[in-house]
């Protein structure tokens, strides 16, 4: 069976993987194993498309491929015509917190808003323009207006009202209608200031209601504790304008676990609970949340999600059924580290991609892959800390060397200084663990 990977995909895969970055396209060609996990996540996409909501935690140790899986689903969702938004949590970006930590996450999500035509983010204006173009075309076709007709503006404005009437029952409905209208007016009249003000409002960049009122005639702004409400509305909006829904991908959940202050941490967990409940109880529609975190982040009963009783009972009971697959009915998808066999198949796939990329036939077979794997497990700390990212990077480097130097044997290149023993990266989670265990009297 052929690989099905195209030259273009192969190029992108090789270039990005060599740099240690998760590729944007062609991920399905190197997705090894994880069949049940991917099936479960795809079924979530179907649920969202059908008008429900979804919430999944993707949990695994450092290097287990959480971010990779998230990226696979994100890319696939864009191809399925979803609007996607993603953000990495950090000490400055949480779900909520004094000082605008939650709003910072929302801003990041809106900055990274992506659709198939804008896969790298920044699609907010595209989405608005697509909506307006559709309305404009519709009005022109129905009423026979031309672009220069003044009546067109009024007609489009009333069309916008018509759409947003459906959304006015939700928080921010009226404000959103006004902002959308302001964007249209700004666009049509060439008033870029007004247009930018509308975008600024949608990106959550207004800090003062007075300023928003003066510039856009709206009474509300998106704030730290209400951004999630706006996302719920936005998901309905994108559905209305022809997308299948909104998917929110939040990576590095461990940053919530690392919040030193217990109250601040629990506030964030409370926010997760709110979102979780909304998705389960049908209060949110056409929206999916995917949050990744380490095992400790979820299961640690001292400071993880399980330290928050309401979440523990919901997550551990496994009673919420929103997957068609009986094995993956839990909101938590646990990723195990890749087994040696899975790594073997992954490397095999990389050989195929490499061949397509450079249009040649590699000499590497099963024996050589096995030998390479043996050389990497002999590295310092490899038993626990060597991640697929490092393995892939080194393997591609070896493949490149072999392609460029056909006169050298595989053995000689493998034992070249370039592939000599070196330390694996340290697990960032261990820092927290060691902090707790060994130096309990450490404080600030």
């Amino acid at each position, binding site marked *: 069976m052929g690989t099905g990977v195209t030259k273009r995909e192969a190029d992108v895969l090789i270039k990005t993987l060599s740099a240690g970055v998760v590729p944007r396209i062609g991920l399905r060609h190197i997705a090894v194993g994880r069949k049940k996990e991917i099936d479960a996540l795809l079924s979530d996409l179907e649920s969202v498309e059908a008008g429900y909501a979804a919430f999944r935690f993707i949990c695994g140790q450092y290097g287990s491929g959480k971010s990779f899986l998230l990226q696979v689903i994100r890319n696939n969702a864009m191809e399925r015509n979803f609007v996607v938004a993603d953000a990495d949590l950090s000490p400055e970006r949480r779900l909520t917190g004094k000082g605008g930590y939650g709003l910072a996450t929302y801003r990041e999500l809106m900055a990274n808003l992506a659709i198939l035509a804008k896969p790298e983010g920044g699609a907010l204006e595209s989405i608005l323009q697509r909506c307006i173009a559709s309305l404009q075309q519709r009005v022109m076709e129905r009423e026979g207006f031309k672009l220069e007709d003044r009546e067109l503006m009024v007609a489009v404005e009333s069309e916008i009202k018509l759409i947003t009437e459906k959304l006015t029952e939700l928080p921010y409905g009226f404000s959103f209608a006004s902002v959308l209208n302001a964007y249209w007016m700004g666009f049509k009249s060439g008033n870029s200031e007004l247009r930018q003000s509308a975008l600024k409002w949608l990106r959550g960049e207004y800090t003062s209601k007075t300023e928003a009122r003066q510039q856009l005639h709206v009474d509300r702004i998106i704030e730290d504790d209400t951004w999630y409400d706006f996302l719920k509305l936005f998901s309905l909006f994108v559905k209305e304008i022809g997308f299948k829904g909104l998917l929110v991908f939040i990576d590095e959940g461990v940053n919530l676990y690392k919040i030193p202050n217990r109250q601040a941490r629990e506030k964030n967990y409370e926010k997760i609970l709110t979102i979780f409940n909304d998705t389960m109880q049908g209060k949110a529609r056409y929206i999916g949340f995917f949050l990744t975190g380490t095992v400790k982040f979820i299961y640690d009963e001292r400071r993880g999600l399980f330290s928050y009783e309401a979440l523990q009972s919901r997550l551990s009971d496994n009673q919420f059924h929103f997957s068609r697959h009986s094995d993956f009915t839990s909101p938590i998808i646990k990723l195990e580290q890749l087994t040696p066999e899975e790594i073997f198949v992954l490397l095999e796939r990389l050989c195929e991609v490499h061949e397509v990329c450079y249009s040649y036939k590699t000499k590497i077979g099963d024996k050589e892959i096995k030998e390479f794997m043996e050389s990497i497990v002999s590295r*310092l700390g490899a038993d626990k800390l060597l991640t697929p990212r490092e393995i892939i990077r080194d393997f591609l480097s070896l493949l490149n060397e072999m392609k460029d130097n056909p006169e050298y044997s595989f053995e000689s290149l493998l034992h070249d200084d370039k592939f000599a*023993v070196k*330390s694996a990266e340290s697990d960032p989670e261990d820092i927290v663990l060691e902090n707790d265990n060994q130096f309990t009297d450490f404080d600030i």
Partner: protein
Amino acid sequence: MNSRRTRKLPGVLIFVLSVVPGLNWISLVYIGVHNEEVISLICGILYGFMVLIDGRSIPVVWLIGTIQYAITYIVLNYRLHENQLSSSNGPLATGQDVDFEITAVAEQNRVNKPKKRRSSTVDGHVPPPENYVLANFIRDMHTYANRKGSQVDFQTFSTKYYPTYRDMDKHQQAWYFYWRSEIRKGNYLDTDTSYILVHIYELLSGVGCEDLSSGYQQLQRIWSVYRKGHPDLDPYLHEWLLDFALYYNLKYELPEDCLPLIGKHSMQADLLIHEHRADVPLFLPFELIDAICEYRMKDSRLYSDNRVLFEEAISQVVAVVDRSFRERTGKGLLAAYGPTERTEDWRDIFRGALCKGANKRLKVSFYAYTKTDSLVDFMDNLVKYTENVLRRINGYRGRLHSISLDSETCDAINSFLERTNGYELSSSLYLGGDDSTIRRLKNPYELELDFNRISKLREESDLVREALFVDGAGDMDTEGTQWVKDISAEHSSSDYTINRKMLASLVQELPQDGHWLLRSLLADQSGKSFTAADEIVIRSVNVISQSKIGRDLLQVRNGVVLLVGDFRDELNYVLSSQLPEISSKRIFFDASKLGQKLKDFVGELTSDQSEVLSAILNEENPNGHIEEVASRIGTLPMVMIDEINEIAAQSLGDIIIETDEISYQVVAEFYEELKSAIIQ
């Protein structure tokens, strides 16, 4: 947040009022209210009553009031300066995760000196600054905090101790503010050390930086940039960076190239080692290992001859031993041999600097790894043993003696060095004994792979690949919406039977001349004589027909243009009944010059989209053209670009037009090929 009113000196108006007879009591009331000076307030009110009740008291009140105002002003001025100096009485909490605690703060001259002198390189050679010098400098620093300078010529400037603004003449000041403005923009111009020190004082006081963390980074940056040309900075900044971190509760970090400055058994080393407490396995830089050891590794000839190898080997051996130790005891080396309790030590901070916190002493609580005997002894033995092994491998004569190390640790070191060098060395050899046995080892990391499982995984991965394949990616959802027209391009599958609907779609897309040619061929079954002008028309019709029905519609045989296939009836029907208007589609790309993928892609584009793509490729500023096309069909430019990108994402696997909202760019990979295929 402090709710107390900020004290401030009265302005010129109040000063004038303070010498006006009959009204000067108001200035006392003012100074009393604004600075919470109860006596001035009461006296002011009292004098006011006296003046209002009996006008004859005005001269007396004027005299007393003026004197009292002057005294109050002077006292207040003095207090304000004192406050500025001690505005940060204790370390400021920045919320950072730090490895030390400050348990006390004191003035340097009020606390007994510690018994042990810290390992400082900024010692008592620099006399402490006079209080007034410090006060003046801090006041000037705030005054000049935001001053910008325009370009001037460089002026030399050098002082023995404590350079200040007041030591500079106006030309030097002009240069300083210009140089500092450039530094703040990231442009590090060369200058004299004294100028750099003044700027460093500012940063040490938190002036000229967004926050303390960025101030710390700026200090590191300045050091890194200027240390080569100004080695005098090294001893100062080496200490001040630590002082800054301690005083403001910041995480202590040191640029990697400055690690060699760390002294043996220093607080700097202890704090940096503590940063590695969570490493699994422990991976200490060579300089930190050296800081722990009593044994002077750097004096060894092996070290001076093989510095890089030696440093790397020592670091890695410590990691290997730590790992082996964890497997055996469940604890790492630092946990096993390191300190169990914090040590407290006094530290004079910002010695030789003019800044906030200068002349203060901090009592710092930290883990003193480098002064813990058990760890020092263990590391000494470890590095000596490793050196013996390295000596043997590199053919050096002589061995270090008096090494006491358990056999498991020796085995771990030997096993590691065997893997890195291809030899196993007997653990008994290098404890100062004989060294003769070397033998090859077989691979200790042989993997057992389950090939049945691998075969199953291959099948599963193929299934995943199929599950993730999206046919017709990007199609807009039209089911759930009543009011939005699907504006995305229609896509044809290559695998269908050709029907009337498809032919209608084909005909609709044809250009004017293509349409005309088709009509003439339908009118005359024997075909049309081929002319040179037909060539482009035939090619363009076939590009469209390839994308719509998966095959060519026209061909030239024996100088005659013919219709391919038996579609005459369908085409006649389509042309006569279904199309009220003939498309005015123009062809923008010569498909024969394109590869298959781009040919498919271009075939998917509508005429308007092709026009936009061609404009982007062909015109220097295509914005106007794109807007014109978008307006013509009642859509918006960005929507058109998105549509083209969506089609590209499906047929090419990625977007084709990159945009930064102002300009558009066809991705480099396809640029040349598309540009060469444009029909002018």
